[in-house]
């Protein structure tokens, strides 16, 4: 994924200011920044939920900005998005939640194929017995794992995580970190992870990008960031 000159305004406020980023294959990039820095805006621009005012986003060579809705749907089938609040459809069971993106895929799948893919996804997150449960019956950690299963069900090449461990206890948060790495290993995915959780950052990041004033302020590994003298970087590690 190559992002060049991405700019986004909300009214007169410039949230992203010619932001550049490259994400390589099988790489986890963590976007670090203060609340309101524009991290969620960035990943929503990538998935097409927000339209940037300027700039370019290319996913495997295909431009995302300014394309038709039909073309955008095709690009989206290669990108998974894990919402901060999970966004499980609360009127549907776990099985129906997982079947939902499969039934809307542009490649037609048989019921047998759908059932297999649902069970594979549930097995990946160790929740095989929850297929007929409703989201409200699940704990927060289980909901997060089902949401991750739904995100992964089409085996996307790129996954966008919006605060994957927010609101979870430390043990469950660590389980989610391990799941992110396990699925990356299994499906050779690249990821952009938005997180304030420094343990999640340490566990999952191949590279960290600090988003400051709408721009990429600094990039490096966790150990490079931890040892940095810059006050703006140090404040995240205090």
């Amino acid at each position, binding site marked *: 994924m190559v992002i060049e000159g991405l700019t986004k305004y909300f009214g007169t406020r410039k949230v992203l200011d010619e932001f550049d980023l490259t994400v390589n294959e099988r790489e986890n990039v963590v976007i670090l920044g203060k609340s309101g820095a524009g991290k969620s805006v960035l990943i929503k621009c990538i998935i097409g939920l927000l339209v940037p005012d300027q700039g370019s986003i290319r996913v495997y060579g295909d431009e995302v900005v300014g394309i038709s809705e039909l073309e955008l749907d095709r690009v989206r089938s290669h990108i998974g998005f894990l919402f901060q609040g999970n966004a499980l459809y609360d009127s549907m069971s776990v099985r129906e939640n997982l079947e939902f993106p499969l039934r*809307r895929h542009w490649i037609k799948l048989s019921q047998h194929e759908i059932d297999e893919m649902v069970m594979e996804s549930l097995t990946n997150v160790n929740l095989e017995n929850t297929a007929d449960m409703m989201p409200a019956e699940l704990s927060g950690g289980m909901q997060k794992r089902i949401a991750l299963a739904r995100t992964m069900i089409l085996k996307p090449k790129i996954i966008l995580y919006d605060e994957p461990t927010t609101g979870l206890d430390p043990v469950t948060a660590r389980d989610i970190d391990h799941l992110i790495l396990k699925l990356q290993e299994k499906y050779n995915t690249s990821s952009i992870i938005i997180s304030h959780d420094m343990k999640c950052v340490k566990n999952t990041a191949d590279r960290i990008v600090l988003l400051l004033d709408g721009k990429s302020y600094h990039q490096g590994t966790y150990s490079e960031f931890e040892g940095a003298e810059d006050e703006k970087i140090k404040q995240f590690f205090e």
Partner: protein
Amino acid sequence: MSKTKALLEQTGGLVRFAGHFVVMRRQDRYEIKEFLSQCYTIGYLSFGLVGLTGFIMGLVLTMQLQPALARYGVAAELPGMVAIAIIREVGPILTALVFAGKIGSSIGAELGSMKASEQIDAMEVSGTNPYKYLVATRVIASMIMLPLLTILSDAICLGGSYVGINATSVISLRLFFQKVFAHLSFEDLLPALIKTFFFGFAISMIGCYKGFTSCNGTRGVGNSANSAVVLSSVAIFMIDLVAVQVTNLLRLN
């Protein structure tokens, strides 16, 4: 001035939102299963409430009119007069108002809750047109179900009227319906049914719009549900006002 501006902005937003209904992408899948599910929820599950209110209104209307008509010596015309009132106006308006309270508010709350919890965004990123899946299914289901509910409500209302007449005098069911149908024609029924078609569109479209534009979390969801009912109720009366002008012009009244 700011309230007027807000009202105009909201009206413009609602018209733009409703306009998407006409220009939806045909390439997107037809959500037949969801549409049938909405027909069940919107139509079948509303029947009990609509039936009950219809029966009570028929009974009350008859019992209120009976003494007045008897005073003027035209009590025998009671079945016909009640039937005309019910078929032309009371049945459609009452059913639509009950529908707005039940369905308009539930659509507004459901979609507002989905908006607040990013479920609508999740649908969009999974390759689903949320407008087609959530709005079009509900609007089309409402446009079909409300006229059907109105017909059923009218019939039950007439049943309530029969009970009301028999509370103070005696009339056979056969004579009652003979008098009812002697005064009714298609010019009474058809315009009334056509306007319920538009009532259904307005109620569900307003509910969906309020849900889609919900903000500020749970408080916003409550506001969406509430304002969906209020705005739908106003829209029902405005559509009714336009409908009566049209039927006057066509000399159907």
